[in-house]
């Protein structure tokens, strides 16, 4: 699909919505955590890894996908989830641990699952690599269309699962794309400190697959590279390592002071840049851009209201969903434990 004005406007809309999601969650996160910080306090407890700055990855890559395609994300899933079209109300409710959440409050922000749009995420580094490749294999066996994508960080590219999965993908020529989101940091460790090669996309040669690198953190460029990768996958030409330079503007997680980041490594916010570009290109007017911004903020406000208004799950629900369909003896143990 060509990079139409309509498509580019949708990129901006999605990026704005993703940012609205993170900003709303960040604001809520600090409730109950000041003056004394504690992961477990407040209405949004636990670790929170926000996507501020990575929105172009979500918008550009998801823009190149169809409904059959399958995605796994990592501990920083919001931008991919929002741009993929994961149910915003239920995702918000999940972050707050509510019964109406996508996982009925069992998962939290690192464990976002929405089968309706083939989206899954989890919190162990590089954990999503192999399952995504397996989803691609499943579709091949089912003779159904669909490309699988694993979204990981540049830090995850040094985990064994990265290597094992890409080698198998190469051998089987599976329709698989690993999106390496290079935001320069793995917690406090820079890519140069952790990675023996400048570009992970250069590792593609070691797996008999294609490598793509986009340096701009611009959704247009990301979309075009993703589209090439998706086309190869659909044509049976196998996998791609798609490495995208991006940004991490809100720290590793909430509470990270980022004192370790030197001035010259401060990263730019891609959203105002893209806004200016679209206006320069005559794709968007200031007024339209503002309208999109406020639409995003309103939509997110609605989602947050839904989440806040939703009830918490009952304590006893903790015993549900351990096994699908239950299991005789386990139910008994469950009953005992409940008693």
């Amino acid at each position: 699909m060509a990079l139409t004005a309509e498509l580019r406007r949708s990129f901006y809309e999605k990026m704005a919505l993703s940012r609205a999601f993170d900003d709303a969650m960040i604001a809520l996160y600090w409730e109950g955590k000041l003056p004394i910080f504690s992961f477990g306090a407040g209405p949004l407890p636990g670790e929170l890894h926000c996507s501020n700055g990575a929105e172009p990855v979500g918008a550009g890559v998801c823009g190149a996908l169809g409904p059959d395609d399958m995605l796994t994300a990592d501990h920083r899933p919001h931008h991919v989830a929002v741009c993929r079209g994961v149910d915003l109300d239920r995702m918000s409710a999940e972050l707050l641990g509510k019964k109406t959440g996508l996982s009925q409050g069992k998962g939290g922000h690192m464990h976002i699952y929405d089968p309706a749009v083939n989206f899954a995420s989890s919190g162990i580094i590089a954990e999503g690599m192999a399952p995504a490749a397996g989803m691609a294999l499943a579709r091949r066996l089912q003779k159904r269309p669909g490309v699988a994508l694993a979204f990981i960080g540049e830090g995850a590219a040094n985990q064994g699962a990265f290597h094992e999965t890409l080698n198998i993908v190469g051998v089987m020529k599976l329709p698989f794309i690993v999106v390496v989101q290079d935001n320069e940091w793995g917690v406090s460790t820079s890519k140069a400190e952790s990675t023996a090669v400048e570009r992970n996309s250069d590792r593609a040669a070691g797996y008999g697959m294609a490598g793509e690198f986009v340096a701009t953190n611009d959704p247009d460029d990301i979309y075009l590279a993703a589209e090439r990768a998706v086309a190869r996958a659909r044509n049976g030409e196998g996998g791609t390592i798609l490495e995208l330079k991006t940004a991490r503007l809100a720290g590793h997680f909430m509470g990270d002071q980022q004192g370790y980041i030197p001035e010259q490594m401060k990263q730019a916010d891609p959203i105002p840049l893209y806004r200016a570009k679209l206006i320069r290109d005559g794709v968007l007017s200031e007024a339209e851009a503002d309208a999109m911004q406020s639409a995003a903020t309103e939509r997110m406000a609605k989602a947050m209201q839904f989440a806040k208004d939703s009830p918490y799950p009952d304590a006893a629900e903790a015993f549900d969903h351990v096994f699908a369909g239950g299991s005789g003896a386990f139910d008994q143990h469950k009953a005992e434990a409940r008693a």
Partner: protein
Amino acid sequence: MSRILTMSRAGREALDWEMERRDDIFCLGEDIYKFGGIFGTMDGFGAKYGPERVISTPISETGFIGMAAGAAMAGMHPVIDLAYIDFIGVCYNVLLNTASKTHYMSGGAVKVPMTLLIGTGGGYNNAAQHSQCLHATVAHIPGAKVVYPSNAHDAKGMLHTALRDENFVIFLTHKGTAGVGWMGTPIKTTLSEVPDEPYTVPFGQVKVYREGSDVTITGLGMSVHESLKAADELAKEGISAEVVDLRSLVPLDRDGIFASVAKTGRLVVTDEDYLSYGVSGEVIASVVERDPTILKKPPIRVTTPDIPIPFARPMEQSILPLAGRIADAARKQMA
């Protein structure tokens, strides 16, 4: 009709029957296309089902077991051959955090139906990295079912059950019980009359292999057969031992264990896994947390001690829970 089969052939029959009828099942593992899996469970499947459904993988356990989990989430039911349980160290995260927890973490939105075949145990001088049981290590994971047939009848019935389960099932078989060519003559008590027709054996029920009134001996996998040997010895001495096969670790049939001990009042727990923090302690705790007064004597554990498995025969044979040690423990119970 029915015939006497080994566990290996019986298991193969179940998998073959299900694969013939279902498109969602496919097999993954090292060398399975040419070798049919460590226990021959997929023997001849390469030729019969082709390389699409019988996939020989690289030596990348995190890769292909993780892929199996993803394929399961996408509607398939993969059957994976991991060969030896000693290798779980290189793929443990898939078992611990992905396959077992995704259904829960998704609030039931995502199912992960997959069956992982693993061989356990030693006794054939394969040393510390190829002789472990480690069944407690996988049974401690919430969200994974763990079953452990010890004879051909259960191997077929429990594999049918596993293949029809919507969950992650870890299907353990002790290498010495399977009746495969590289382990010598099959152990008689592992063979059974196996019906041609498919049938299921439910998870979570102990099997009383041999009724007895004086002492309960629990076992799993190979230690069931050593317990039966011991029971024969004991019978000659007039000691009536009841041999209980746990068969399933998750779910564990605590009622079944308690019922037998309540009857005999004496308990010997056998286990080829390491002593501490494992199955042997769990079995004893399950009994006494209900009622310690049913015990006429302190229960005795006959297990592999907390040491790596030594290579040399005299050392390995002395540390395994073999019939001699089991019978001695039962005698102590009667003393």
